[in-house]
């Protein structure tokens, strides 16, 4: 009795503990994907945070409106390039072009050097130089914007010799005017909330369809479904379409909250928003469906969703400035639907972009959709093999 009790009694048994621990190890080893995640996630996180993410982005696309050309103007443009904050990508003419360039995201900054700049500088009249800033993402823009006055000053300083040398003493010889557009107060909520809409849709939409086929397989209902003459496209479209409505509902809720709780404006054209959001939801649902053709269980489908979600939030420009990432990370980001959605939705909601301005974000989504749908349909198995 006593020996028996020591071995099998209700007290903590090392043997039982060992048995359970062993079993868990064996199961962990069999579940390759979980194991890969345990190893893969820290590696991925470290690489992304260590190399890709940079909250002090440089090489931001900048356009120049040259009202005057002279040594001072050239020196300023030169100094901006040298600072590595600004990449001068070209010149613009007129307010309309400046607006379009900023709205479509073609440029984050536009420098306007006014007419008679050189003359006014020489006369000591402290001419203005204007920097238009796309401030939708305060983090991305702030470092470059705040360095601008210093860059201008040091660019002009060497020119102030001889007759102009007394200008070097007093107040700055050039008055820098910063014009923060779209998010003048620099509130991060304005930038985050539209992006959050995309992030939440990415997670829910992908997850919903990712478990679509694996759930049928796990419950055994896939066999009945496959025994009917159902065609792959019918199954995919049938599985996806109910969730488009769910996505629309989620969007409506989030837009309502964004407006009432955070005062996020909605400046753009509803058709542009509708086109963008529909495309984005369908792309994510298709990605989920692709996962469900790859996964062997609902658990795996959820893991794949998570694997996809992580780079989506980190590399899309939602959380960290897109321009701050190195080239490879930007390329990776371009392949993620959230990247295009975040750009598009910020443009529509905060900058008042219309359908035409949003097209640049819609067609990449269409390409991603075509690729994903083709893969999913080719992966969809019509037999139980």
């Amino acid at each position: 009795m006593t020996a028996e009790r020591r071995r099998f009694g209700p007290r903590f048994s090392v043997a039982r503990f060992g048995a359970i621990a062993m079993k868990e190890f064996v199961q962990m080893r069999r579940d390759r994907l979980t194991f890969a995640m345990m190893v893969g996630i820290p590696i991925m996180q470290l690489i992304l945070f260590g190399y890709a993410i940079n909250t002090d982005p440089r090489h931001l696309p900048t356009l120049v409106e040259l009202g005057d050309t002279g040594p001072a103007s050239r020196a300023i443009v030169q100094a901006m390039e040298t600072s590595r904050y600004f990449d001068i990508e070209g010149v613009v003419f007129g307010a309309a072009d400046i607006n379009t360039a900023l709205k479509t995201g073609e440029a984050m900054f536009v420098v306007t050097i006014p007419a008679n700049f050189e003359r006014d500088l020489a006369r000591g009249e402290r001419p203005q130089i204007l920097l238009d800033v796309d401030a939708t993402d305060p983090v991305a823009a702030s470092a470059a914007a705040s360095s601008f006055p210093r860059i201008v000053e040091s660019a002009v300083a060497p020119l102030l010799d001889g007759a102009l040398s007394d200008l070097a003493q007093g107040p700055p010889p050039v008055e820098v005017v910063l014009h923060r557009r779209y998010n003048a107060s620099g509130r991060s909520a304005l930038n985050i909330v539209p992006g959050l809409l995309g992030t939440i849709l990415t997670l829910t939409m992908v997850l919903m369809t990712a478990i679509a086929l694996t759930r049928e397989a796990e419950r055994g209902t896939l066999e009945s479904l496959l025994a009917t003459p159902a065609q792959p496209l019918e199954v995919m479209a049938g599985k996806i379409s109910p969730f488009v409505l769910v996505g629309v509902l989620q969007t409506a809720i989030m837009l309502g909250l964004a407006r009432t709780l955070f005062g996020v404006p909605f400046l753009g054209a509803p058709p542009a928003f509708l086109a963008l959001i529909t495309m984005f939801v369908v792309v994510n649902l298709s990605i989920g469906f692709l996962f469900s053709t790859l996964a062997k269980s609902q658990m795996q489908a959820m893991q794949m969703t998570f694997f996809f979600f992580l780079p989506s939030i980190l590399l899309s420009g939602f959380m960290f400035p897109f321009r701050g990432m190195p080239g490879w990370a930007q390329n990776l980001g371009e392949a993620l639907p959230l990247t295009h959605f975040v750009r598009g939705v910020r443009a529509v909601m905060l900058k008042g972009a219309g359908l035409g301005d949003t097209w640049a974000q819609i067609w990449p989504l269409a390409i991603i959709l075509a690729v994903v749908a083709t893969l999913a349909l080719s992966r969809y198995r019509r037999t139980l093999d």
Partner: protein
Amino acid sequence: MNAETVIDVRGLTKRFGDKTVVDDFDMTVPKGAIYGFLGPNGSGKTTTIRMMCGLLRPSGGEGTCLGYDIVRDADLIKANVGYMTQKFSLYGDLTVRENLDFMARMHAVPDRRGAVAATLEEHKLAPRAEQIAGTLSGGWKQRLALAASSLHKPPLMLLDEPTAGVDPKARRDFWDRIRILADGGVTVLVSTHYMDEAVQCDSIAFISFGKKLIDAPTADIAAQVGLHTRRIEGRDLRPIHAQLKDAPGVDQIARFGSALHVSGRDAAKLDAALAPLRARPDLEIGPAKTGLEEAFIYLMTGSEDNYQ
């Protein structure tokens, strides 16, 4: 192919990795037959049926179902065959009616509502129509599954162990329904483990280790297996069972209530083995007809380890 042939497969083979599950399988099922498909667990019955209805791609061989090629015309077969899976595979979170309605839509059944209502009546499912299918008991689930797989009036039904785990009353009701379908001209291929069901079939194919061992009209099975059987009655037959088990000439011993059925392929050797017992006054030994069960247990011997 004969116009009256519904299933005609030749050399059907299925390998999963290096494991051959079905090996060079031939079968011809005539129109209107109830064809029994027997074999131990893991013998390849389900795999064979799945290949016949386009759910698995054969690794080798060829064949037709209802005249359609089992590889090329899988969609046409799926549209015209009623397949009832071994495991309940309808939606457990839909009601009985919703499940039937879904299947009716998938098969584009004309007058869907009418067809579903008629099927509910026909299979006596009407009182359960609004019940969630997952909460049905085993017998009701089977009944729903049969109703769902016959809803589109397929001329061929493939039933994979449709009555496994169901009580005898439900099994009898189920077989009544199969009879009604067959009387209506439907061809039925049904796999089973139950002998009382096997005897109701017109013909039986027996498969083991993926190979077909026998395929004959039910009445001829016992003769084809070629077993001779003797019946021993008496008290305390246990020592006799032990004694005869390894005796030459005895291939199999089966217990039937208070009697032993001893069978062997060679009648002379069998009788020789029994000769010493005939002298005992407490035992009664006589000839007996070899039953299906003895025939199949004999066929299964040696495939016992084939569980998957």
